[in-house]
């Protein structure tokens, strides 16, 4: 198809042609086009359907503020809904579809909504679908959601790569229009580190859209020269296609760089977008201004656009929405559009200016004091009806109408930290207030400086002020400096369906209705009507809504105020926030030293925090996890098993006060622990609750190794470091984590000593006398490798933990398996570990749940009263030591096959089952292959005195009731004979 609406000139490369598809139909375009400009050049004005009424809609703007021209870009998993055609940089092979229509854009069945608009006014769904209540979720809401909406998701995972990064500079300049470029030249020439970011793919901002000259050059040539100079400066980084999305605390700005959106396909490994965190002491907002519309009857037909957008399409993209254009304006800028389009050969039907004193033009007609009162054209504008100053009406034939209601400075970023803009009477617009984010200043049109000369000058001055530069400012090119004053004209009186927010289908009438119904605060207005929501965040509509609300409430616009401006400035794909952190890389993974060995052996892994731990090791023929776990438990208790326990936190504690420090950290005593001995330790929080448990091994008078649970390794280290620095700063203690420096394996079972005697070098005596229960020490293994040996037991068996430098962990595991073959050794995972600790009655994470005290866990006597320790005093609070506090017990079903459910509650044998009669709950439950029964641990009121009682274990949610008996928590070897063997 030929580009019938392509004009001369522009910044497009006519030597290259691209082919693209819109709604399945092929068109041609050129590099430098956006999808929007290419569609207009190809005489396509109808782009989509509106949100609620499914009215035909076209483009309103030429920039990121676009409310209407949204499409689904690309296909398949790459499909991106709600993409603004005005910001889509053209590439060869681009495919886009219109959205929110069925079955087609031109014949949309849901356009019937428009006929029932009286029933669908603002907030209709709050009132219309109240009864019956049950219908809301099942019928009404799905129905409304189906009818209203924007694009559709692909329902597939986003296949693109995203990245994130960090940059630092002396001055971040946001926006590369005349103010931004001049600021960058000023700062760059002075040697400052500058980042100049602009959302557009071509730097220059509004200068790309204008036909006037800067000095003796065209505006575009001046931009090219400035960009060339900036590119040559090593201290200046230019970031086109980069939207600064927010001003955050401490001089941090978020910026999204679209590194791949303009490419047909991304090169392998390259990101589609990068989320930059830019750190800077100073930032300069040069975000320009956005033209605002005037509301009038049927002002939403395709072809009715912002006048400045028509000018941009003509001057920059050499495209026009129609060959016959009318202008409706309340200010001189509308006339500039008419003049530029006329110069490009477009017929100007008339300029309709609401002002009686509008400028005169001899090239085309100017209707002074006139107003547009209605429009016609089903799928695109055909006629405009104008009320003339003498009361008569006139119909103008045109395919496009440029509307200009004046300009609003883009103050958004100035308000991201709760600053409020202030009203400027001369501009009849909000400008930045005084309460800006620290380090941010504003220049150019964003600061209400509306002429080109003013923008250039304020850019240079603001950069110099921000960086405290002294000396002469750069020469400015001569530029237009027309005085700008804007007399407000928000909407045409008497209109019925005049659109304020085209993206959300909010009319003038809806705003008035909001007032009538009592939603008068500007924040309520927004929620009630949805004015200013969704992808454009009301960039072209908010001010008109405020003006109407001001009028009906009898207030001024600044009295009505604005809603809060929040980041991001424009929409950001969720994938961009995720960056590289997705899928398996969503968080870092920690692997144990035996991981690769376990993986080869077919281990099943479980995530414990960031760690991957072997859960069990299936053997051929084992089809259910219980088979593997039961076998691992039996084999360990019968002979010997090995478990990787590297994940337990290890903290090296050294210093002359190390023992006294641990005495304060742990509830039980450590000062007198002998060198070469290990002790179980209980750590309380300040409030007396149990924080963590573990062991501390004394390797020397002034050297301990503390172990923590896997889950609490970081929090315990943090707690100890806090205590060291803040509670006991006078103590000579040094802490450092050694968790992953050592590969540590539990070797458990009656044959564990025999196995270790084959590993540990013979000069170390492992006999019960020489190395008794709770002994520890440095040894060597396998012919001289330094190692640490601890005789501690979590399983209740004769057991050791042996540690070697992590790089040898894989080899040591293989050696243990090889040497243990004669003992039928088995590796065991966290499941078997859990079974054995429940059998032994050891409390673990399920019992140390943040609500339990030492007394609850049967460890009350461990809280030493002979010394002070963290949490000791508060553990004696009255309510924590009452006679019927929860106590740890074992739970055994009367029928061994009955399942014990963790989380189930315990009730007396008779009486109601409710919270008031609750006796406690089950914390851990396993199947014991040793006892051939399901068993559990639980916390029961006064449980220690109730052993032998029968109770009901209930889980009302799962309809479970099981008869159980309270027993000692120590199911296996209650006297501890095995571990001392």
């Amino acid at each position, binding site marked *: 198809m030929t580009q019938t609406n392509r004009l001369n000139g522009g910044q497009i490369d006519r030597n290259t042609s691209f082919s693209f598809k819109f709604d399945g139909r092929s068109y041609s375009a050129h590099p430098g086009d956006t999808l929007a400009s290419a569609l207009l050049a190809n005489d396509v004005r109808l782009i989509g359907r509106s949100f609620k009424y499914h009215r035909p809609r076209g483009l309103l703007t030429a920039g990121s503020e676009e409310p209407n021209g949204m499409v689904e870009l690309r296909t398949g998993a790459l499909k991106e809904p709600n993409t603004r055609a005005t910001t889509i940089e053209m590439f060869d092979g681009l495919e886009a579809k219109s959205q929110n229509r069925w079955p087609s854009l031109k014949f949309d069945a849901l356009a019937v909504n428009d006929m029932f608009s009286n029933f669908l006014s603002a907030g209709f769904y709050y009132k219309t679908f109240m009864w019956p209540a049950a219908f809301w979720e099942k019928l009404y809401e799905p129905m409304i959601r189906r009818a209203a909406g924007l694009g559709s998701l692909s329902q597939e995972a986003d296949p693109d790569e995203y990245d994130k990064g960090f940059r*630092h500079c002396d001055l971040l300049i946001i926006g590369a229009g005349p103010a931004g470029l001049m600021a960058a030249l000023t700062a760059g020439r002075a040697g400052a580190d500058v980042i100049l970011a602009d959302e557009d793919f071509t730097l220059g901002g509004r200068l790309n859209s204008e036909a006037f000259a800067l000095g003796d050059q065209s505006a575009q040539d001046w931009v090219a020269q400035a960009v060339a100079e900036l590119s040559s400066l090593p201290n200046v980084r230019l970031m086109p296609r980069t939207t600064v999305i927010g001003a955050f605390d401490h001089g941090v700005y978020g910026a999204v760089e679209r590194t791949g959106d303009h490419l047909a396909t991304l090169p392998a490994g390259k990101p589609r977008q990068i989320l930059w965190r830019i750190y800077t002491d100073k930032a300069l907002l040069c975000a320009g201004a956005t033209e605002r519309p005037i509301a009038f009857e049927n002002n939403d037909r395709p072809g009715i656009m912002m006048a400045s957008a028509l000018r941009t399409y003509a001057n920059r993209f050499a495209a026009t929405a129609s060959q016959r254009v009318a202008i409706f304006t309340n200010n001189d800028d509308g006339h500039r559009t008419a003049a530029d389009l006329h110069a490009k050969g477009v017929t100007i039907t008339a300029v309709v200016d609401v002002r009686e004193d509008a400028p005169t033009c001899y090239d085309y007609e100017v209707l002074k004091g006139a107003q547009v009162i209605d429009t016609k054209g089903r799928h695109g504008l055909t006629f405009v009806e104008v009320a003339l100053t003498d009361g008569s009406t006139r119909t103008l034939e045109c395919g496009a109408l440029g509307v200009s209601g004046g300009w609003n400075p883009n103050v958004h970023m100035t308000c991201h930290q709760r600053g409020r803009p202030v009203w400027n009477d001369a501009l009849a617009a909000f400008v930045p207030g005084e309460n800006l984010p620290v380090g941010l200043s504003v220049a150019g049109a964003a600061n209400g400086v509306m002429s080109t000369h003013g923008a250039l000058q304020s850019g240079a001055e603001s950069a110099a002020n921000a960086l405290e530069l002294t000396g002469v400012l750069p020469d400015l090119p001569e530029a237009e400096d027309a005085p700008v004053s804007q007399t407000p004209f928000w909407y045409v009186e008497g209109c019925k369906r005049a659109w304020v927010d085209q993206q959300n289908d909010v009319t003038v009438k809806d705003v008035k209705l909001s007032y009538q119904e009592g939603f008068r605060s500007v924040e309520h207005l927004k929620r009630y009507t949805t004015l200013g929501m969704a992808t454009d965040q009301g960039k072209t509509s908010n001010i008109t809504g405020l003006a109407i609300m001001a009028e009906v409430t009898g207030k001024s616009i600044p009295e009505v105020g604005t809603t809060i401006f929040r980041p991001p400035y424009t929409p950001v794909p969720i994938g961009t926030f995720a960056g590289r952190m997705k899928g398996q890389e969503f968080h870092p993974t*920690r*692997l144990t030293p035996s991981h690769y060995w376990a993986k080869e052996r077919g281990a099943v892994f479980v995530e414990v925090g960031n760690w991957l731990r072997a859960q069990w090791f299936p053997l051929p023929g084992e089809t259910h996890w219980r088979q593997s776990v039961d076998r691992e438990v039996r084999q360990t208790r019968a002979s010997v098993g090995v478990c990787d326990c590297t994940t337990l936190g290890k903290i090296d504690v050294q210093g002359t006060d190390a023992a006294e420090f641990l005495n304060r950290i742990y509830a039980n005593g450590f000062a007198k622990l002998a060198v070469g001995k290990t002790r179980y330790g209980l750590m309380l929080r300040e409030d007396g609750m149990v924080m963590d448990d573990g062991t501390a091994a004394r390797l020397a008078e002034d050297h301990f190794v503390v172990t923590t649970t896997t889950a609490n390794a970081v929090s315990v280290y943090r707690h100890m470091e806090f205590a060291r620095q803040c509670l006991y700063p006078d103590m000579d203690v040094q802490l450092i984590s050694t968790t992953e420096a050592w590969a540590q394996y539990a070797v458990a079972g009656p044959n564990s000593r025999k196995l270790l005697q084959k590993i540990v070098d013979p000069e170390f005596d492992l006999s019960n006398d020489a190395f008794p229960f709770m002994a520890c020490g440095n040894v060597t293994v396998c012919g001289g490798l330094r190692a640490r040996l601890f005789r501690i037991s979590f399983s209740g068996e004769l057991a050791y933990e042996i540690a070697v430098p992590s*790089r040898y962990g894989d080899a040591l595991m293989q050696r243990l398996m090889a040497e243990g073959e004669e003992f039928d050794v088995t590796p065991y995972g966290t499941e078997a570990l859990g079974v054995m600790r429940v059998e032994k009655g050891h409390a673990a994470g399920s019992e140390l749940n943040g609500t339990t005290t030492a007394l609850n866990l049967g460890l009350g006597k461990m809280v030493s009263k002979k010394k002070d320790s963290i949490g000791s005093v508060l553990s004696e609070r009255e309510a924590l030591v009452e006679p019927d506090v929860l106590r740890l017990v074992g739970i055994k079903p009367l029928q061994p096959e009955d399942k014990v459910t963790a989380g189930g509650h315990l009730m007396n044998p008779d009486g109601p089952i409710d919270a008031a009669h609750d006796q406690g709950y089950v914390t851990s439950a396993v199947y014991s292959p040793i006892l051939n029964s399901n068993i559990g641990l639980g916390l029961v009121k006064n449980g220690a005195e109730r052993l032998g009682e029968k109770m009901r274990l209930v889980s009302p949610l799962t309809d479970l009731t099981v008869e159980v008996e309270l027993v000692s928590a120590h199911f296996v070897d209650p006297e501890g004979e095995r571990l001392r063997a």
Partner: protein
Amino acid sequence: MHDLVAITALGGTDPRVDTVGGVTCSEVPGVALASVAARMGQKDKTAASLAKLIDAPAPEIGRWAGTTISAYWAGPDQWMVEAPFDTHEELADQVQTATGNSASVTEQTDGWTRFDLNGDSIPAVLELLCQLDLRKMDPGSAARCSIHHIGCFVLCRAPDSFSIYGPRSSAGSLHHAIVTAMRSAL
């Protein structure tokens, strides 16, 4: 001499090497590490012992220094000492001997994994990985930072040579982040 064979943090018998666009990322298992923390009131003595050991003044905040044995600042009155593994596997003992009772010394060799970046465009890679102000990273700089939510140290050896230390257990995730950033940036 023991007969256990070591594996690298990435699980191989040989160190992993990846090259993208002129930058090489090498896994470096051949380094021994020991942490040194001055005991109370022993800061000067520890710094003096350390200076003798590394043949350079004890590094200040954010710096590293040394020759065959070198050290980088890791916290107040705290340093990490690094040396070739083959010749200094027992580095912690050596450092303890050098500092005597003035410092607490802990073996850290296998607590960490090291990746070296060599090439011309390393800042382009690092700016995707860490929040450090790379303009201020000159040869001799050593800084702590988070990479891919992993606590790391970054050392600038030369403008075209950087070392990254991260926890050994997260070597796979750290390596993934580095190589992904290399592919992204280069």
